[in-house]
């Protein structure tokens, strides 16, 4: 799906890729990598109360594909190699927090799980209202087993000129790894069954 075939009016698509080579003096080889794919869209319900949020749910479904594929593509890995994921949204001042919920929760997860192949676990999420340049910390968790402790993490995303008052910023983050130096115990990725989404 190309960006301009979505029902969302997209002003901007952005990606951020981070490679961590070194953490507190220890070499990380191969580097841990994560990517955020971000869309800045017009909020069709800015400035008014709208009871039925169906249009935003459709947008969420479309962005699950667009942003899921872009994030995985930015890492240059196969969908099956994605290890953790997360999602989030910032609603500009003329919208309401519920607009973020309508995009993120009902339908975005399905196509995102196609983009990352599987994804038995809940997609961790965060949302807030904000202005231009507002940073959002997108939570991350293992895609198939939420209790995998090494993969609890977060990635800060921000765009200096978004969201404007009538816009919503939507982000999906994927990784090929957990934290650079995990050592606080708990369930390990290799021990996860990945069937119930938890362990």
């Amino acid at each position, binding site marked *: 799906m190309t960006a301009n075939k979505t029902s969302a009016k997209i002003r901007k*698509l952005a990606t951020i890729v981070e490679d961590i080579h070194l953490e507190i003096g220890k070499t990380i080889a191969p580097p841990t990598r994560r990517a955020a794919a971000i869309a800045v869209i017009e909020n069709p319900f800015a400035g008014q109360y709208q009871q039925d949020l169906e249009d935003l749910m459709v947008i969420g479904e479309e962005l699950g594909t667009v942003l899921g594929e872009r994030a995985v593509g930015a890492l240059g890995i196969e969908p099956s190699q994605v290890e953790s994921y997360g999602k989030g949204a910032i609603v500009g001042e003329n919208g309401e927090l519920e607009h973020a919920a309508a995009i993120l929760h009902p339908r975005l997860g399905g196509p995102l799980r196609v983009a990352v192949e599987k994804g038995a676990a809940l997609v961790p999420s965060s949302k807030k209202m904000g202005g231009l340049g507002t940073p959002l910390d997108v939570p991350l968790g293992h895609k198939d087993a939420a209790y995998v402790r090494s993969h609890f993490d977060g990635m800060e995303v921000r765009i*200096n000129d978004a969201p404007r008052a009538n816009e919503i910023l939507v982000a999906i983050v994927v990784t090929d790894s957990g934290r650079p130096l995990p050592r606080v115990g708990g369930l390990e990725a290799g021990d996860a069954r990945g069937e119930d989404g938890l362990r």
Partner: protein
Amino acid sequence: MPEVIVRKTIITLEDIFHEGGPIAQKPHRRGSIASVIKNPYAGRYVEEITPFIEDLKPLGLKMAQDLIAAMRESSCAIEGYGKGAIIGSDGELEHGALWHAPGGYSMREVVENSKAIVPSTKKVGGVGARLDVPVTHANASYVRSHFDAIEVGINDAPRADEMLVILVMTTGPRIHSRSAGLLASEIKGEDGLK
């Protein structure tokens, strides 16, 4: 000779479809690459710092190549560029100036038609500091449609003994460029200015 120690690399891409005006068929693409490196001169005054310029050249070249690859554009499609540095609090502004040659010349080596000087900015800053890196046309500095800037920064850098070294590139004019001046189609491309 100090070696270049890279803690982290960050690549950002933006595809801009519109900014309130007509929707572009081909989005305006902007990209940045930043490397978080250890500042070998942090914490003391060092008079002779130029050897680090040579050390940085391979990194500059690799960053320019990696950014072009990330933008998935052949080198001739890059139309604007810029560079910058943020120096952590145990360093000095002059350390950022070490990036001029390795950043600029490496990028011009891989960007075709790049006669123009690479615009730059630098500052000393803390963790999470943001830098607005200036952008101008790669072959003629006076092309008005390509004057731009890209904000770059990362939440966990630069630490006190680190530097962020940055390259940015664009694939065309501002999305709704209409402020007159020299057009890209009018440049002679001989002196790097017009």
